[in-house]
């Protein structure tokens, strides 16, 4: 047993924390001037942060659960909205399934020159990965895609989209889902992009008879779901680590505020009712940290075990996120509800982590079913 970070990961963590503290402009994020900063993105690439999300065989120098955890916890601590989770999902699928030609894109991704998005979610799917209604039919050597993709994070900025579509079977069936690598400017692809409550941007994507060549298919036709689940597990590890960083920051902001703010002639930190609530918050955040470690350590486990950890971690972190958001705001009082003060952004971003990849209640149900199976 050893819960210490390796020297390399510790260096990555420290360097990234300094970099993000320097580059993250919360005011610009909140005022929505831009979804994220191209300057930060270039700096992340240069530091090797994007490479840390891939294994050596894939052209990176990390790729393990604990690499994801280190990177994303720091992203969370900074409240940074840069679309790294999209690299984990879409980049991970390309790395796992891609042909040599498709995998060649990864070098540019790791270098910071290419943006990705994973266009998978659909209206009515909620968080079910197998709910794919978008269709892909064969046409000559190639494929024709039609359907609608919902809340595609980074869709508007992506150069390439990994799009899931059904090549056989019915909506909700595990078999019959295929993946395609689609340029954002493909004919027939239209997109409405918009701000997200937690920072960054999302998009609604319409696919109307989008023609793709045979080599756009990523992996084997009809068998995309297993890879989607594997990359979804990695993304859940990344997102819950980000939530952990966001919670740490919300907690630190609250500690600072309680220490400085005086009412009734003394700092709020002296009130025992508030002291106990801070203790509770710390206890729950440490629980969440252990849950993320559990998942990070089981990403390569057999499916049943891995997926049980996915749901366990997302459930516990989701539940803790709600507690931390609500308690941090409440203990701040009115100031905690403003966007002028940093907590506003952290509270929003943390809350929104529950609306990606499944909320606490969804995963409570899923965990129960997985345990019963």
């Amino acid at each position: 047993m050893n819960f210490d970070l390796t020297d390399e990961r510790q260096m990555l963590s420290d360097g990234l924390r300094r970099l993000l503290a320097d580059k993250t402009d919360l005011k610009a994020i909140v005022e929505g001037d831009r979804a994220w900063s191209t300057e930060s993105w270039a700096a992340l690439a240069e530091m090797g942060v994007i490479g840390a999300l891939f294994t050596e065989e894939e052209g990176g120098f990390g790729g393990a659960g604990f690499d994801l955890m280190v990177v994303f916890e720091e992203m969370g601590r900074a409240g940074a909205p840069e679309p790294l989770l999209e690299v984990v999902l879409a980049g991970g699928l390309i790395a796992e399934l891609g042909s040599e030609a498709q995998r060649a894109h990864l070098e540019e991704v790791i270098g910071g020159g290419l943006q990705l998005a994973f266009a998978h979610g659909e209206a009515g799917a909620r968080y079910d990965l197998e709910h794919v209604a978008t269709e892909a039919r064969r046409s000559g050597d190639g494929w024709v895609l039609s359907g609608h993709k919902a809340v595609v994070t980074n869709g508007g900025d992506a150069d390439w989209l990994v799009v899931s579509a059904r090549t056989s079977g019915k909506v909700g069936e595990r078999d019959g889902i295929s993946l395609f690598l689609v340029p954002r400017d493909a004919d027939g692809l239209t997109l409405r992009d918009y701000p997200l409550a937690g920072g960054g941007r999302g998009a609604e994507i319409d696919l109307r008879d989008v023609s793709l060549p045979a080599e756009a298919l990523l992996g084997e036709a009809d068998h995309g779901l297993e890879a989607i689940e594997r990359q979804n597990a990695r993304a859940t590890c990344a997102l819950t680590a980000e939530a952990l960083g966001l919670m740490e920051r919300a907690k630190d902001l609250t500690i600072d505020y309680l220490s400085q703010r005086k009412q009734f002639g003394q700092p709020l930190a002296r009130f025992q009712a508030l002291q106990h609530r801070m203790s509770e918050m710390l206890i729950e955040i440490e629980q969440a940290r252990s849950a993320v470690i559990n998942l990070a350590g089981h990403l390569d486990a057999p499916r049943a075990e891995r997926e049980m950890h996915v749901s366990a971690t997302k459930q516990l972190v989701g539940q803790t996120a709600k507690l931390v958001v609500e308690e941090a705001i409440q203990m701040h009082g009115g100031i905690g509800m403003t966007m002028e003060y940093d907590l506003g952004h952290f509270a929003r971003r943390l809350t929104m982590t529950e609306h990606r990849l499944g909320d606490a209640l969804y995963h409570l149900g899923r965990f129960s079913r997985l345990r019963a199976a």
Partner: protein
Amino acid sequence: MDLTYTDAQEAFRDDLRTFLDQRLPKRLSDKVRLGQHLTKEDYESWHAALQERNWLAGHWPEAHGGSGWDAVERHIFEEETTRAHAPRIIPFGIAMLGPVLMKFGSDEQKAHWLPRILDGTDWWCQGYSEPGAGSDLASLKTTAERDGDHYVVNGQKTWTTLAQYADHIFCLVRTRKEGKPQEGISFLLIDMDDPGIEVRPIVLIDGGAEVNEVFFKDVRVPAGNLVGEENQGWTIAKYLLTHERTNIAGVGFANQALANLRRIAGLEMQHGRPLIEDPLFAAEIAKLEIALMAMATTNLRVVSAAAEGSAPGVESSMLKVKGTVIRQEINDLTRLACGPYAMPFVSEALEAGSNVEPVGPDYAMPATADYFNNRKLSIYGGSNEVQKSIIAKTMLGA
């Protein structure tokens, strides 16, 4: 024990329902239902419609233009208007200043200000909190110094709701610096058009700007605008806190929010079935509904006692805590019901008269905005921590 309403109370409810059918425009109730921001004109037109029946300030005595409602009638009014998605009545003039003037104002003040509240001439806002005086309100620092026939006001108020619409503000100001802080506070009426007043909006985490900072620099206020005696302001503030809290539980709002949650959970799909059929989700809704059923009766117990003349004390603190927590939990479950579509955040879509197309279902973004916005419920009007301290004091002593 009898949980039924009297015939007269039921007749009043029928009358209200007919009125709401006929006089509440769908344009307005749709805005309320969809969580869009209402304009000043929206509120004013609804206030005017109610005042035709003397229902705007129904709890005021008939002599002052009200209907002399007791607490039960007032409760029925809240229940029916929230059920119909009517705009809320802006409380600052009707529920707060009016009763204060009736109790502490001079005859001249009553004759001048009360009719103007009812006919919409004046829009009031409340100047209580300051950057350094939140839960510890008595530590407020905005000063009013007497200078001949005027008070000269300097300082800053904050969290002033809808100050952007208001033409008048009632303020707690410091008129004496010696002695106990509570004993140097006065209640002053100020014209927002006076030179030296500046209003700055505060953007909240729901993206809206319903609250403001209000700055006072050498604002000259006629001495005749002092309500009650100089340095009696704390008594007035406490009167407001204990006597104007009949709707503090927000049962009507909670019912409205619960109906909205059930509607959304019926439309959202999970595993190919309506979300409301998911046993876990249904159980969460059920827990809230059960809590709300009990809270509604707690509220009626307090309301009935108030109708018989007993002043609610610790009960209003109890109702505030339970009522706000239940509403917040309903809001929480509602945004969760919306799934990934709770993430798109197109603030313009909530603006009155906006043509911006919502992303996904039209209920999703308001659900997110409400969840964030209603964090205020447990903070304002005496935070839930302050209420719990009041409750503890009555049980455990100092």
